[in-house]
């Protein structure tokens, strides 16, 4: 048994060195060389200030902006405390939240059913996307608040819509941060 203690200790140290240090350092080196933007978190810089990451959702509450999904990460879109609500399918709290949000959205856009992703929190709490159905639902409100024609806003949404990857993978989606930044660029808020 003691004859096995030496390889147990030495191999632990050797493999820690290889898989725990050399491997991640090498990957970091290559990644920083080949894909510096992505390796550093796909950050978006405006006027030499970091305003967010293309991949990480952020909250929008003011008029004239598309709203992201509700978030359970920290106090909402806390990118240092990711997570979901973990409310179960028969949870009274969940159903009450969905009900009150649905009511509020229906008041904004009467007569239309509310897309489910508008009233449910994502798994990460940092979902950068909304569904095209969700964007379409919000289009008339944003157009009204910005004082621009609905079709102009709708065409911006189209520009910010990513289809399925390679036409097959995943689901169509609209990046909220990209869309709102583009809105600000084209049409100043009133």
């Amino acid at each position, binding site marked *: 048994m003691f004859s096995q203690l030496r390889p147990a200790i030495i191999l632990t140290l050797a493999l820690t060195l290889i898989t725990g240090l050399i491997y991640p350092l090498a990957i970091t080196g290559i990644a920083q060389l080949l894909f510096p933007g*992505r390796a550093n978190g796909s950050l978006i810089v405006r006027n030499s200030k970091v305003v967010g990451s293309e991949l990480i959702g952020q909250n929008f509450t003011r008029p004239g902006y598309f709203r992201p999904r509700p978030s359970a990460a920290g106090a909402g879109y806390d990118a240092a405390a990711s997570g979901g*609500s973990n409310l179960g*399918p028969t949870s009274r709290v969940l159903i009450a939240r969905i009900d009150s949000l649905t009511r509020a959205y229906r008041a904004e856009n009467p007569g239309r059913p509310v897309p489910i992703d508008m009233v449910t929190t994502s798994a990460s709490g940092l979902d950068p996307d909304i569904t095209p159905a969700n964007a379409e639902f919000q289009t008339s409100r944003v157009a009204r608040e910005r004082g621009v024609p609905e079709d102009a806003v709708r065409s911006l949404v189209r520009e910010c819509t990513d289809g399925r990857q390679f036409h*097959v993978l995943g689901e169509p989606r609209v990046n909220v941060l990209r869309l709102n930044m583009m809105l600000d660029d084209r049409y100043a808020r009133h």
Partner: protein
Amino acid sequence: MTFNGILQILLFFGLVLLLVKPLGAFMARVFNGERTFLHPVLGPVERFIYRVGGVDPNQEQHWTTYTIGMLLFSVVGLLLLYGLQRLQGVLPLNPQGLGAVAPDLAFNTAVSFTTNTNWQAYGGESTMSYLVQMMGLAFHNFVSAATGIVLAIALIRGFARHSMQTIGNFWADLVRCTLYVLLPLCVLGALVLVWQGVPQNFSSYTNVTTIEGAKQTIAQGPVASQEIIKQLGTNGGGFFNANSSHPYENPTPLSNLIAMVAIFALGGGLTYTMGRMVGNQRQGWAIFGAMSVLFFMGIALAYPSETHVHPAIEKSGVNIAAVADPGSEQAGGNMEGKEVRFGIANSALFATATTDASCGAVNSMHDSFTPLGGMVPLLNIELGEVIFGGVGSGMYGFLLFAILGVFIAGLMVGRTPEYLGKKIESREMKMTVLALVLILPLSILGFTALASVHPDGLKGPLNAGPHGFSEILYAFVSGTGNNGSAFAGLSANSMFYNITIALAMLFGRFLFIVPAMAVAGSLAQKKIHPPSSGTFPTTGWLWVGLLVAVVLIVGGLTFFPALALGPIVEHLQMLAGKVF
């Protein structure tokens, strides 16, 4: 369900199928000690490790020596990880200045990563420094996966060899698996993930002023290098709290597909390795076939279940239908705890795959699944995670089921059961039943029962009603099964859960391995009998059907009462419109 959803599921399975032969044949070469195209580069590294470690790779070991080596290696690694967490505050690569991890949490986490479970009672970005993530957690992601694989190889050698006392050399198998199998695939995979947007840096967390002027702190780190081994080694421990649903861990549908394929790749490949090593590929494909049938049964329940929601939600004026009209597309269904880019199909598929295997990474929150959708992960783990399974552990688990299968077939026809030419006798049966029918259920049901009545246990669940019970059950199913996923509403970072779940993880890993290795040692000594007209053939569809039935009946009978108290009763209550 949509046509595209089904197409994505078939595409995923097709890719796994394509990888079976190349990966399986490569692993057979590596574990037979043959030269591969990687030897010119990695051969010197391998020999250097043997020299400093005092290992003679050609010295064969008895099953007891092999197992003791594995246990000692696990203990050393466990202590190292515990120490790293406790000393984190004074070690480098800690830009956020995170302090020492609390003793009970550090113990739980050390056990969790040593046993290939990766149960996480903590949030990664708020608890672990970059150094601990890399040298502590990612190291275990490699070696606990390698340990699982080499144990499966040892059991396969038990079948392949005859009249021998030894089953290989643990140290040589471990080093070869890490260097030639895991490391090269990870280098490749990690870079593809960075290309898709997974960060790989050592920066401190980014402070952002958002468009609306709010402050946002974005956690960073060497994520990609850890992400790929997390999937490939069926570990599942997320760099961030939200695991593979976090856009930094899993930014695109392609990164998601890579993750899912990586979860099944080596487990699937091992069926081919097994066929190659016992000299009959059809034996390996039969096991692959049975695993595939069980996989499709799981997704066939999970996917349609997730297109539904509670009737009260449907009545509130929400649209849950899948819409394909351009400009207003949506996946619909139960989107609570799911990401828009993955929708329903990829969330249900990921949940099925991650629990078929003992991975435990999640790209959606299982706690918020519908009752039946969430029952699929629970049931998958309860069946022993033998559907492709944890790398290696799925294979040795499934081989024990195969032994049980030939035993039952033998009872029907009144002959001594044989598998792969080996007579299955009293000793093998005792060990098999000990592992499959006694230890796993005792740990799962015993701890769940304890937590369901103990005041500290009852403080855990977030949700009320039957779902709260499901949260407790899932924790011990996941711990014992070394899965690591959770119904994450459970507040598991308490003294009670940290200790009980750590024990469940230790029982599920090591009390399972020792009987499995005893079977390996005992089989290796036996002669191989050539098949006769009376031998039950273990290659055709009849055998596949029998295997599927044995897995379902053993798992089903043992755990049905517990499932009836959790997801099944919740499903019926939901249909009746009840809330808790």
